């Protein structure tokens, strides 16, 4: 069984290389098929592994492919650690990836760079797998950077568009800010445990006494390392304030937004924290920090979506806010719950994006929802699947989103500390917001009448587009019922105590009666009134609300802030290069001294007269001087 694990990354790398370097003669369609097949095969392999893991209890596959570095006492291997956690993640990633592969064959068919696209997404899947199965922090970081790289390349896929290449630079740099801290965190962990290896780290957790590690600025060593690692996760998983890259990343092709910027890559942060949960349970400060960051992200960024008019950006903001949910769950050490939400969210968010993709295709690359409307008659399949996706995301009972989100809120509520209660309220509010913007999107796109020209020749896309939608819809609905699996995910993870889970039925009853449902109903009412029936409430007119909406519309000026900082740095570097490097060091010192010496020489040359008696005088004079000195010395 274990030997299969090696095949998964190998197949993906193979497909990436084969497609990337394939000759022109191999036409796009077939290369797409090849890629899809390879990913599908690896999906099958991963499922086999998952079943194998579940067949026996407490089984962990752990080994090294090969030794990466061994110098001094340092040993870093390239290997895998497969437990239930990573096995499930593996399946999720690969399933989404294979579906997106399939979808892309249809979506990208006009593109000239079709093959480049496929080789990229194969490469992405490869690095994601590397990240997921890794058994040490360095390999994790390699995969981490790998997915970042591919996302950089794919956001800039249309490299002629200025907006695209701006966006991908932005994405990479913001991620790099995170990575700087991430690598510091890794190094701190290494310095404490003298190993990058998960197993060693977790086994040594109780051996080293955390007390006598240094304290920096009143925070314990572990606090700091976890904090730094989490800052890395903040960049990758688009948490406030490092979320700015994700909305712009929508410049990439839509399948990419589905695969990378919704389902898999952005959840790498959550995965990482879950993976390192044994460390994170040791920190109080960092946990609270994570909780607050997550909750505020969920609420505030979600609110932006209400006023956004680009269909993809709306979904992007909703992604950020959902990630906020997961992060918040991490903040109270409910890793399994967070992971559960990750898993459900992967499906329905991918679904939403793919629907958006099909809509965009049908409308000839119009993404502005103000120009849409009444599409439900024209695009029935898309409509239905989009509906399902929306229901999931707003947590409509019996959909997957319902299970995950309610479980999350429950846990949050039962974690009785003041901060967590605040967070709970924020998340509840966020649920309301989520409902509003999701339904707004639904209504504006599919209901009322079309607000643009030639309504007639809009038609549903080909099978290869719609099939993935159907698959994902099914998955989105059923995926929630695996809740039990997630609640008892024990390995290396701290399962939530089962106090508020006894049987799925009770859970559903309990969930329906929870405040979340209230938020749902309220949200539905508001959204329907405003965006479908076009009835405007009077409280919208009062200026407090206007102020708030203005603040939200300004997206809290995060972009402006980053632009300010980067301009500042740029001007500093220009100044330094001009004044300090060229001016002081080079001009004044390196070239200055020779210049001075040279001018001195020129001066001497000008001063020397060439008169015979001056020569004679200088001889005699120096003669006298010498004699004077020596007389003075000897007498």
């Amino acid at each position, binding site marked *: 069984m274990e030997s299969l694990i090696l095949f998964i990354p190998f197949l993906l790398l193979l497909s990436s290389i084969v497609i990337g370097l394939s000759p022109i003669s191999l036409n796009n369609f077939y290369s797409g098929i090849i890629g899809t097949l390879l990913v599908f095969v690896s999906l099958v392999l991963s499922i086999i592994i998952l079943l194998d893991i579940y067949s026996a209890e407490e089984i962990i596959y752990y080994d090294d492919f090969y030794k990466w570095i061994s110098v001094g006492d340092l040993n870093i291997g390239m290997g895998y650690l497969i437990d239930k956690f990573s096995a499930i993640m593996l399946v999720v990633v690969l399933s989404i990836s294979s579906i997106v592969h399939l979808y892309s064959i249809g979506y990208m068919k006009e593109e000239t760079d079709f093959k480049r696209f496929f080789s990229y997404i194969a490469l992405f899947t490869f690095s994601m797998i590397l990240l997921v199965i890794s058994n040490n922090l360095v390999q994790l970081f390699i995969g981490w950077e790998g997915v970042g790289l591919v996302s950089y390349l794919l956001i800039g896929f249309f490299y002629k568009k200025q907006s695209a290449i701006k966006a991908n630079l932005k994405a990479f740099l913001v991620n790099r800010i995170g990575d700087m801290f991430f690598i510091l965190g890794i190094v701190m962990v290494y310095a404490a445990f003298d190993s990058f290896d998960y197993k060693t780290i977790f086994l040594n957790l109780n051996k080293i006494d955390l007390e006598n590690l240094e304290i920096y600025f009143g925070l314990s060593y572990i606090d700091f390392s976890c904090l730094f690692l989490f800052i890395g996760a903040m960049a990758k998983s688009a948490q406030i304030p490092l979320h700015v890259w994700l909305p712009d990343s929508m410049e990439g092709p839509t399948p990419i937004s589905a695969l990378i910027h919704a389902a898999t890559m952005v959840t790498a942060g959550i995965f990482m924290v879950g993976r390192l949960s044994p460390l994170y349970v040791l920190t109080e400060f960092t946990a609270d920090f994570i909780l607050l960051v997550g909750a505020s992200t969920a609420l505030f960024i979600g609110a932006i979506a209400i006023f956004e008019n680009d269909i993809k950006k709306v979904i992007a903001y909703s992604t950020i806010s959902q990630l906020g949910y997961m992060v918040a769950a991490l903040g109270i050490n409910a890793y399994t719950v967070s992971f559960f939400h990750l898993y459900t969210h992967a499906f329905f968010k991918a679904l939403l994006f793919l629907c958006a993709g099909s809509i965009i295709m049908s409308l000839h690359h119009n993404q502005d929802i103000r120009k849409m409307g009444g599409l439900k008659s024209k695009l029935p399949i898309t409509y239905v699947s989009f509906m399902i996706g929306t229901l999931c995301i707003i947590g409509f009972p019996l959909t997957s989103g319902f299970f995950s989100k309610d479980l999350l809120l429950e846990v949050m509520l039962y974690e009785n500390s003041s901060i967590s209660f605040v967070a709970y309220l924020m998340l509840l509010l966020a649920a309301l917001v989520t409902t509003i913007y999701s339904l707004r999107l639904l209504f504006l796109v599919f209901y009322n009448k079309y607000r643009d020209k030639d309504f007639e020749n809009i038609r549903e896309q080909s099978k290869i587009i719609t099939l993935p939608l159907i698959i994902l819809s099914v998955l989105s609905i059923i995926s929630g019922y695996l809740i039990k699996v997630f609640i008892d995910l024990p390995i290396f993870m701290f399962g939530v105590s089962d106090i508020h889970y006894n049987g799925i039925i009770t859970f559903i009853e309990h969930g329906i009666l929870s405040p979340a449902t209230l938020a749902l109903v309220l949200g539905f009412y508001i959204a329907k009134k405003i965006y479908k029936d076009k009835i405007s409430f009077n409280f919208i007119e009062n200026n407090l609300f206007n102020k708030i909406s203005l603040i939200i519309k300004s997206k809290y000026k995060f972009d402006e802030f980053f632009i300010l900082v980067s301009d500042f740095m740029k001007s500093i570097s220009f100044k330094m290069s001009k004044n300090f490097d060229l001016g002081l060091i080079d001009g004044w010192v390196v070239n200055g001294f020779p210049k001075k010496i040279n001018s001195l020489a020129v001066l001497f040359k000008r001063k*020397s007269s060439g008169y*015979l*008696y001056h020569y004679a*005088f200088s001889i*005699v004079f120096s003669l006298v001087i010498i004699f004077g000195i020596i007389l003075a010395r000897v007498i």
Partner: protein
Amino acid sequence: MITMTHYLVFSALLFCISIAGIFINRKNILLLLMSIELMLLSVNTNFIVFSHFSNDISGQVFVFFILAVAAAESAIGLAIIVSLYRIRNSIEINLINKLKG
């Protein structure tokens, strides 16, 4: 009674005068030649004095050589001056600074 010291001081004075003559005079090259002669004469005085007081003849032999060489020297010096005069009709020293720096 004139001791050796007096002679030595005298010749030293001669030497100094001659050197002074070389760089104080700024008009005429011939004066330069004279002061050079003077310098050699002071040296001769030294030699004679030493040879006299240490009854050793070789010093005075040296003097003859010096005189002879001095003659040759001044001859060559004059020749150079002549050729200099041929080119530019003056032998003023403070015109001779084509070569400098």
